């Protein structure tokens, strides 16, 4: 079997379904371990920040969630593009499976950002480039889900959703670069990673471990949802019937 054929072999829901189940289990376990370690470092090992006190500890969920919100959108747009280009069922299913988890992380990023902004900047919300474009990202996820839910024919729903996902991807670099501008604007309020070397190391370690934990959680949740979508869409197929009987 050539590499290309192997790729398309896994592009069939029937063969991907059991693989997704195994991957979801391992990723879920990795997420649990990483988040436990990350939270321990973030809440118990990392010292209080000199400028922000303990309010900065929101960083350990805020930054990983914000990264995930953008990363999952790019992945969704990638699968949408692959679905349009190759007309593979599984690609569209993956795009659909990514949207709710992406929306979840976007909401968490906005919520925790608001709860961090209040004590550090004195306001829950400002209409600056970063916050506004992240809010638009949430509406793009909701729009994708609403559009797909509104169209009865799955193939047309897939195509319409894929187009929306692709058009919306221009928003991601806007968020990303507004973060860079945002940090220069709010230099005084951001966490200083250069203050004391030992402090920077534990803060950074906690944040990175939480990021990997959120990654593995995101992959696990998306794969579990992809499995649901595969079962729902292929409910009349032999393999789905065998699976449903097998776990009775």
């Amino acid at each position: 079997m050539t590499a290309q054929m192997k790729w398309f072999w896994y592009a069939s829901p029937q063969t991907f379904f059991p693989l997704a189940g195994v991957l979801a289990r391992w990723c879920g376990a990795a997420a649990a371990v990483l988040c436990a370690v990350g939270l321990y470092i973030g809440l118990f090992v990392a010292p209080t920040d000199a400028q922000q006190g303990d309010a900065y500890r929101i960083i350990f969920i805020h930054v990983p969630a914000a990264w995930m919100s953008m990363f999952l959108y790019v992945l969704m747009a990638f699968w949408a593009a692959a679905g349009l280009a190759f007309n593979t069922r599984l690609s569209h299913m993956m795009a659909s499976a990514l949207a709710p988890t992406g929306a979840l992380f976007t909401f968490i990023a906005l919520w925790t950002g608001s709860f961090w902004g209040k004590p550090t900047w004195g306001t829950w919300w400002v209409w600056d480039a970063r916050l506004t474009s992240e809010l638009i990202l949430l509406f793009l996820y909701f729009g994708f889900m609403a559009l797909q839910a509104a169209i009865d024919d799955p193939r047309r729903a897939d195509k319409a959703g894929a187009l929306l996902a692709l058009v919306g991807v221009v928003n991601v670099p806007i968020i990303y670069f507004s973060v860079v501008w945002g940090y220069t604007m709010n230099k005084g309020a951001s966490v200083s990673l250069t203050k004391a070397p030992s402090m920077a190391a534990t803060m950074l370690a906690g944040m990175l471990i939480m990021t990997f934990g959120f990654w593995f959680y995101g992959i696990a949740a998306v794969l579990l949802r992809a499995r649901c979508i595969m079962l729902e869409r292929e409910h009349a197929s032999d393999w789905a019937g065998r699976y449903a009987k097998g776990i009775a």
Partner: protein
Amino acid sequence: MNWGSWQNFLAMGGYAVYVWGSYVVTFVLIVAELLVLARRKRNAVELIR
């Protein structure tokens, strides 16, 4: 360890509302997503049977 007591830990240096308001909502949402996924899977299997 830099808290001394559980009271200090829960107080989060006076930022308890903000820190726990972030952590608890995140935790609840993630648990909710997993419950929704488990129910969706059950319903899909029911539908096939």
